[in-house]
């Protein structure tokens, strides 16, 4: 009766990892891929002789990325758990039109910024809560729940539309978008602050850490007695809130209440998150990684415009770049990539 002593010694292979960089606080080696891609792209466009690296353009880049960053933060937490939130556009559009109707505007007689914020952001919280409840308690897949909510919210926005776009006359709201501090608008600063808060949540709170856990193995989390449902709901509430915040900021940026204002927020957010390294299958990634993804997309779009690529080709090139980035970034994971829940 001999023991299996000539089995492959797995432990020696791994012992070199001991003493590695602490994973919680810093990026892991794998995540450098996205940042590297970003740097390479920026270098490329700068070298292509256009005005890419000019201060004006970099400002434009940052401005264009601000609202997508806020949306991507919300989506990141949802994706970490392995779920998805498709309702971003609808909730944002609803918040946009609601805000425009409550602040001083050209259509209604109301002019109450505070009330506008409460109603708009409250709608986001509420819709997010409904998403979370239906997903966790009724066990309907998040894809379906949020898809339905997308249309519900969009329909509500259309219903509220007063047959012409209300123009925003509230100077305080407009100033968030128009007033520049150090060359950047208030929207950018809001995004930065949210990013810092999100990072804190991700690394130092139950909601954050257990989102990773749920994405890693939900069954084990439940077995360990964790309140998985609560965390799921919390994350959807956050996402709804951030979506509606996007809507409010869009109103400031557009200067009108557009009931389709949120259109076009969804796909770039999800692809940005994936490009940055936040997997659709959950358990990997984080807010910083997702933001890198947003920047990559912005850089590509802006860069192609700066170097004068034929506009008909732009979409093709953009799409191709996204595919390459995703494939390159997840090459080593290809056996493990699964479909989102």
């Amino acid at each position: 009766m001999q023991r299996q002593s000539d089995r492959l010694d797995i432990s020696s292979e791994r012992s070199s990892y001991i003493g590695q960089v602490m994973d919680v606080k810093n990026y892991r080696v794998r995540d450098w891929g996205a940042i590297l891609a970003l740097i390479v792209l920026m270098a490329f466009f700068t070298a292509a002789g256009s005005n890419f690296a000019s201060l004006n353009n970099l400002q434009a880049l940052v401005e264009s990325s601000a609202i997508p960053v806020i949306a991507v933060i919300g989506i990141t937490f949802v994706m970490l758990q392995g779920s998805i939130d498709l309702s971003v556009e609808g909730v944002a559009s609803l918040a946009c039109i609601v805000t425009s109707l409550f602040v001083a505007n050209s259509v209604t007689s109301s002019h109450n910024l505070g009330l506008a914020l409460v109603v708009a952001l409250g709608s986001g919280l509420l819709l997010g809560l409904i998403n979370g409840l239906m997903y966790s308690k009724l066990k309907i897949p998040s894809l379906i729940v949020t898809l339905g909510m997308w249309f519900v919210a969009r329909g509500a926005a259309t219903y509220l539309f007063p047959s012409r776009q209300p123009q925003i006359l509230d100077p305080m709201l407009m100033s968030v978008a128009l007033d520049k501090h150090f060359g950047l608008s208030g929207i950018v600063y809001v995004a930065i602050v949210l990013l810092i808060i999100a990072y804190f949540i991700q690394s130092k709170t139950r909601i954050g850490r257990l989102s990773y856990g749920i994405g890693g193995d939900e069954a084990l989390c439940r077995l360990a007695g964790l309140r998985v449902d609560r965390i799921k709901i919390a994350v959807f509430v956050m996402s709804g809130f951030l979506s509606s915040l996007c809507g409010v900021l869009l109103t400031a940026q557009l200067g009108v209440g557009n009931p389709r204002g949120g259109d076009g927020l969804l796909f770039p957010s999800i692809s940005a998150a994936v490009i940055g390294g936040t997997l659709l299958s959950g358990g990997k990634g984080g807010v910083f990684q997702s933001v890198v993804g947003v920047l990559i997309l912005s850089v590509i779009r802006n860069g192609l415009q700066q170097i004068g690529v034929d506009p008909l080709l732009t979409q093709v090139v953009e799409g191709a770049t996204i595919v390459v980035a995703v494939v390159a970034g997840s090459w080593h994971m290809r056996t493990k990539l699964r479909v989102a829940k």
Partner: protein
Amino acid sequence: MDNHSPRSAFRTAGQAIALALILTTAQAAMAETKTPAIYYGIGSESSEYGNAQVFGAKAVAASVNAKFSVLASDYQGQKFLQDFGAIFAAGCKDCVAILDPASNAFTKALVDRAAQADAKILTFWNSPDGIHPWDTDSDNWVAHLSFDGVESGYKNGQALCKSIGGQGGVVALMGIADNPPAKQRFAGFKHALAECPGMKLLDSQYADWDQTKAQTITRGWLARYGASIKAIFAEDDGMALGAVAALREKGLAGKVQVSGSNGQSDALALVKSGEMTSTMYVDGAMQGAVSTALGYAVARGDLDLKKLTHAQREFYLQQTLVTKDNVDQVLARKPNAADYTYEKIKANFWQTSAGPVPTGSLK
């Protein structure tokens, strides 16, 4: 994984029965009313233009006590094919459908279905070259209406040229590739460019009719071309608004000239404030009223299709270039339902026609 379980079979059967019941009731209801039902199809219910059309159309319908319904395509022709297809299939003899097929590809299919149901159909904006109401399903396809995109592009281009003193760089925000209104407006614009040699086209980009996209693209342009941009040609007001927002960020609104098209009220406000130079105003309410009245007249028998000329069956409606000079007038106009009664329009259906659609311009 048994797809033939009794439960799912019951469910499908139940759905089929429910659908059949609904359709037969609809059909019965239809057969009872003598006044034809009117179905108006717009692009989106959250657009000012769509709402204006509905206003005019509804007024006409109300004046003859006709049943009136609005459908929205979300700019998807497929959706109208399904929605209107269902309405026609349920039996729609002598009812009137007025809609924008959203894309050339769907026009013939929709017109054919209307003909099969013997309904009257009017289309606007999207119709392919080569078929016309007088040679295709001519007993049912009453007319095709549109607005002259070339005129819009040309006149707005001229206005821009004038506003920059004939000298300077211009950039163009286009809608969607291969979209007839977009192509027409750009063609008109190029014409204006040809007549204005000092105005140079620096770049053109597709902004998908989207306000935010237009804003992002304009920011990029400002970074790239800086002060050489003197004007921005936007193929619609939505994108023009986005361009103005980007200009505002740099304090350039009013200094760089912007043109749009559609004439929605927030654009008109910008023309008044000077942040926009011009836009082409289309009277959506008039469009809705005229098309509805025309359709109703044919359905009722007040008009004989065989006696109509080509120019009466395929025409442009008038549009007005709005600049600072006349913006106040246009803004002061408040649509009055009383203007849009059937009787009033019946007096001369083609009062607001700007002329027949030239051949070859619908490509």
